[in-house]
């Protein structure tokens, strides 16, 4: 389990109030004053309906300055702020640091024997009363083991999630979850310790709650709640290839570790969702996919010798055919894209070439898919885009036998 330091004062405070029902943990640095104000507001808004539940708000603030801030008397005596030591080694990689903080929150909740733990992103966008209520309801009343968020639909947001993470996670683990890697989610007390457990060999690995729930706790139901919050990710200075490599590499690593589990799973199950789905964001100006298409074309011209090591001849032939299409007719078929991702996952597993090179050679292909997607959905409504993504995810499920075959018999001839 991830090591979490709790100050003596905090421990005494936690022992005095007893085991909490719900730990609301902030996964990342946050101002103590802002958190106190927001927490007091939430407790007062929850009112008598949730008065029987004991909430504890945890935040990574076990530093002298932060502890001094937390020691200030609270206006609401029911408010319990528990600072914990933030993860000591920051990797500097966006999602690795977020995952480390999330694990620390979950480990704290497990050590306090909480019945539920709600993990909130450090920008506090999801720290709102009705969302806390929804997460609590799904875990405590509906007996869910894990509750993931459904963010408002946006055509052009979170494309790595829409194009790779969500459909791949769904095809592998059989849970129809929109955001398998999220800033906000909730877990039951039984799942907290399992999620917090960090294998020593994967110190900077990301936290994939759905994978853990599906493989280690298959008896616990997974649910979703609609979260009408929008997280601002600081994208400045982040290179697409680096982030894509980090996210895809981590998911491929999970695939490798959980191969014995996902090979037994067929199809997928719908997950219940609570709350009101937010309206999609307005379309705004149309997007020109040409720069992404140019990147794909440059990749297909220059990286063919690398792709030849990673992809079967049929996929290469299809890609070559795509490069000859006029830009307005460019469209990457769903099954081709699914097979390409599966082949890259296999190459990552087999170390066909250096893993950094495998992930680096993936970026132009991803941009090709983005160009195709942007062209296709530019005239669709949010609802139609959702339908399209559902159809897209089904194609991944239909191609899972291909992955199984390649995974089990990688040396077999594959045209």
């Amino acid at each position, binding site marked *: 389990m991830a090591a979490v330091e709790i100050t003596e004062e905090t421990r005494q405070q936690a022992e005095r109030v007893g085991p909490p029902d719900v730990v609301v943990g902030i996964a990342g640095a946050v101002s103590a004053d802002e958190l106190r104000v927001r927490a007091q507001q939430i407790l007062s808004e929850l009112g008598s309906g949730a008065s029987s539940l004991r909430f504890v708000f945890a935040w990574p603030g076990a530093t002298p300055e932060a502890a001094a801030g937390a020691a200030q008397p609270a206006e609401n005596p029911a408010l319990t702020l528990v600072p914990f030591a933030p993860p000591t080694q920051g990797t500097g990689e966006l999602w690795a640091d977020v995952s480390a903080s999330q694990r620390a929150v979950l480990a704290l909740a497990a050590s306090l024997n909480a019945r539920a733990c709600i993990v909130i992103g450090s920008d506090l966008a999801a720290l709102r009363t009705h969302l806390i209520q929804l997460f609590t309801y799904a875990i405590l009343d509906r007996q869910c083991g894990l509750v993931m968020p459904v963010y408002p639909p946006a055509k052009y947001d979170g494309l790595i999630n829409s194009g790779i993470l969500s459909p791949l996670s769904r095809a592998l683990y059989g849970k129809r979850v929109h955001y398998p890697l999220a800033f906000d989610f909730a877990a039951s007390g039984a799942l907290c310790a399992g999620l917090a457990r960090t294998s020593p060999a994967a110190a900077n690995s990301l936290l994939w709650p759905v994978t853990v729930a599906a493989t280690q706790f298959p008896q616990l139901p997974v649910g979703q709640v609609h979260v009408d919050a929008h997280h601002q990710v600081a994208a400045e200075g982040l290179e*697409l290839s680096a*982030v894509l490599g980090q996210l895809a590499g981590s998911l491929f690593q999970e695939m490798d570790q959980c191969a014995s589990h996902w090979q037994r799973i067929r199809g997928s199950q719908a997950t219940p969702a609570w709350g009101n789905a937010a309206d999609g964001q307005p379309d705004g100006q149309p*997007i020109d996919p040409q720069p992404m298409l140019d*990147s794909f074309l440059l990749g297909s011209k*220059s990286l063919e010798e690398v792709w030849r090591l990673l992809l079967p001849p049929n996929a290469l032939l299809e890609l070559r055919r795509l490069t000859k299409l006029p830009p307005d007719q460019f469209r990457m078929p769903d099954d081709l894209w699914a097979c390409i991702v599966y082949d890259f996952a296999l190459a990552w597993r087999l*170390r066909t070439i*250096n893993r950094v090179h495998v992930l680096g050679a993936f*970026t132009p292909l991803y941009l090709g898919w983005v160009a195709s997607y*942007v062209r296709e959905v530019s005239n669709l409504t949010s609802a139609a885009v959702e339908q399209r993504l559902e159809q897209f995810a089904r194609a991944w499920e239909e191609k899972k036998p291909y992955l199984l075959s390649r995974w089990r018999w990688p040396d077999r001839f594959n045209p």
Partner: protein
Amino acid sequence: MWQQVEQSLHSSMGLVVNKIATLLPGILAFIAAFLFFLLIGWLVALLVRRILTAMHFDERMRGGASAIAEWSPRATPSLLVGRVVFWCFVFSGVVVGVSALGTSEHIVSGWMLGYVPRLAGAAILLLAGNVLARFVARSVLITGVNLNLSYARLLSMGVRWMILVLTGAMVLDHLALGGAIVELGFGILFGGIVFALALAVGLGSRDLVSRSLEREAARPVEVAQPEKIHHF
């Protein structure tokens, strides 16, 4: 006169036959030692692989960011260790065989024995140079493409050949072949390439650079537009 020729031929034939007869046991000893070490190496490598598999060596190496695992892309780490052990034995077999050859012919074996470490060093240099050239060239190619450089392939090929030429010169130098010619030739070649590139860029793109600078100076300051697409 014919008698003298015949005698001379006989004596030279005798010398050659004598030489071969002297060398033959050594050659046989070389082959026997080589085959023996080959067999021992194969058995020990098999044993090492079995022991490492029993110790779950691959899983341990794959778990962390292990250097062995990263440098053996196609093979498992235990297979790689097994191969290293096998080739160590093969190398030892060659050395023992050559020294066995030495019991029959001192001059040949002395020269060969002295040259074996150089050959081994050169082979390692060649292998390392090739691996490095391939790795760096691929890194440059992928990075260049991800930076949308249209000349990424050219850049990668240039880097590859630079490393290969450097490796070739180092190998020849290590084998003590060519003497000063290699150093001189490499210096001229390398310096020539750099000079030609400098001339090509300096003269060929002088106008291009000046136009580009003028355009940059005249361009109004642009306000960064928010990105419409968010990948993450």
